[in-house]
């Protein structure tokens, strides 16, 4: 009786610690960088959702006739000794007499939108290509992977610039360009996962039981690719945000007066010597957002990658 109880409790304990998700979650929460990244990201998402409530001014409407401020005025913060009778502008006023702080807040919406949409699209297409390539092999594999090689043998930003030139400048086209450029990475990740499990006995078993190729790919093989895809995707969002901002900076992405950080930097970049605040804040915002995704991605990788289990 007593022995039975013992066995039971041991079984239960083993079961708990072996649950993959629980284990992974626990490992994620043990990563300081992941927690920091997640907090930062949560904060940014809140800003993006509540931009209307937080922002003191309209991001697009100039303040001409509303307030007595001149263009490119520096920050005025009451807490730091700016006279109380002057309107408060935490990050100053931009070249079109708009409140920079409000514009930076609204910018978070564009960045998060860019990050999530491009990476989702790239993962979707990359998964299909990688799965077909890895599962069917042969000619499919050769054609798809050589095409991916051509895409990869090319600095991603330059390729994105070329694609945007074909499609015409604009935020939507920039998104498409960045997504296309990102596809090869995900195609490779998925292909590698598919190849690693394709010959396993359980896949053959599923095939013997009469499972269709589609069923086997979707149900038996692709779930293996999810962890590396999550890690790669999180890190990819950071890159996508950086690239989108760069395109906007060059005038190929979001167009003024959109409060997109890259666009804001691009329009005011010649003013860096006279109004540095207009350059500093949007860039810092890009950096913080990308940093959040990178920290989270690194943390996820350390938590998910089984080879790293015994480190740290």
């Amino acid at each position, binding site marked *: 009786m007593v022995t039975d109880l013992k066995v039971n409790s041991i079984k239960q304990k083993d079961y708990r610690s072996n649950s993959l998700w629980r284990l992974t979650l626990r490992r994620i929460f043990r990563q300081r960088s992941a927690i920091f990244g997640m907090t930062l990201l949560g904060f940014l998402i809140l800003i993006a959702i509540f931009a209307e409530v937080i922002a003191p001014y309209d991001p697009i409407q100039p303040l001409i006739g509303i307030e007595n401020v001149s263009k490119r005025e520096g920050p005025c913060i009451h807490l730091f000794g700016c006279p109380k009778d002057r309107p408060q502008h935490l990050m100053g006023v931009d070249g079109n007499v708009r409140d920079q702080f409000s514009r930076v807040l609204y910018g978070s919406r564009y960045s998060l939108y860019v990050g999530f949409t491009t990476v989702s699209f790239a993962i979707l297409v990359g998964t299909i290509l990688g799965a077909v390539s890895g599962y069917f092999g042969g000619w499919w594999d050769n054609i798809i992977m050589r095409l991916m090689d*051509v895409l990869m*043998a*090319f600095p*991603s930003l*330059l390729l994105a610039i070329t694609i945007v*030139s074909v499609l*015409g400048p604009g935020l939507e086209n920039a998104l498409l360009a960045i997504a296309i450029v990102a596809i090869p990475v995900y195609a490779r990740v998925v292909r590698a996962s598919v190849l690693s499990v394709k010959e396993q006995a359980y896949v053959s078993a599923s095939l013997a039981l009469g499972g269709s190729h589609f069923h086997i790919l979707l149900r038996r093989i692709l779930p293996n690719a999810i962890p590396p895809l999550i890690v790669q995707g999180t890190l990819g969002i950071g890159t996508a945000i950086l690239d989108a901002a760069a395109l906007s900076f060059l005038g190929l992405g979001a167009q003024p007066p959109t409060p997109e950080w890259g666009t804001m930097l691009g329009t005011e970049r010649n003013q860096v010597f006279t109004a540095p605040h207009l350059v500093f804040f949007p*860039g810092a915002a890009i950096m913080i957002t990308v940093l959040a995704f990178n920290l989270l991605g690194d943390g996820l990788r350390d938590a998910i990658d089984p080879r790293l289990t015994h*480190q740290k």
Partner: protein
Amino acid sequence: MIAYTIRRLLLAIPVMVGILVVTFTLSRLIPGDPCKAMLGEKATAEVCDRFRTQYGLDKPIPVQLGIYMGNILKGDFGMSIRFSRPVTIILIERLPTTIELGLTSLMIAVLVGIPAGILSAVKRNSIIDVITMVGANIGVSMPVYWLGLILAYVFALLLKDTPFWLPPTGRLSAGVVSVPFYQVLGWDFPKESLRFHIVEFISNLYILNSLITRDWTVLKDAVQHLILPSIALSTIPLAIIARMTRSSMLEVLKQDYIRAARAKGLLRRTVIFKHAFRNALLPIVTIIGIQVGTLFAGAVLTETIFGLAGVGRILFEAITARDFPIIQAFTVVIAAGYVIANLIVDLSYVFIDPRIRLE
């Protein structure tokens, strides 16, 4: 090894041809008429017809591609539509700027990144490690052009009257002229010859040129102009190299032979550099090769910020101006740079790890 090199170069040909076909097709898909872009909206149909015949744009695209490929084999990249000059000449003028910028940045990234990574791994979990890794994380998250602008603001404006002042734009100050070394040495070549193109190319590498001619004023000026853009361009590769060095070193440092080496009384320094670092070097070198692509992409932005007439900026301008010959030629050059960099990396494996045999 020579056979391996040749085979690798041959294998690169299909990739290069692929890139050529992709950029050729893409650049032809760019909406807008190069004739109207060049000669203005008022150009008559007749003038435009002549323009198209002159640049071979009247033929079907596959035929254009065929002619173009044939010409490239002869070393002829065609005429730039925008500048009405041979693309080869423009390459000779522009490529050295980017090579100088890229190599300096790579040097900074390697010389700072590797020691930082080693230090971080050896003093794991110390304050140095934390600072280095936080720095590396910020480094990869920073927009290159933003850092460039901030650096320009700090060094060109805030430090204006100090010895730390650095120029924010251009390759040389106004009034400073880099005299080509072949003129100083009194060499003379016919203008169109291949040898002339080669020495001209070398003389456009200002730092190398001023070292040959021993013109220290030009050297100082050229180096001063290169510091800020190189720092801006080097941040991302630096951060990535530092992180890779750290994780690779950590992997090696926990091996038994490291403990054995320490146990037999070898100096800590000897163990770290001779036993650990040598074995940790392989993935680091691989990642350095991959950074060459990052450098080219970053060059577009860095050159725009710092007013440098290099490959990145001209490529960006050519894309917006629909200057097809320039787009194609410079894309191929960039791709070739990438292929060569990765080949050098693969060849260096043999020297790093004698167990590796290239087949």
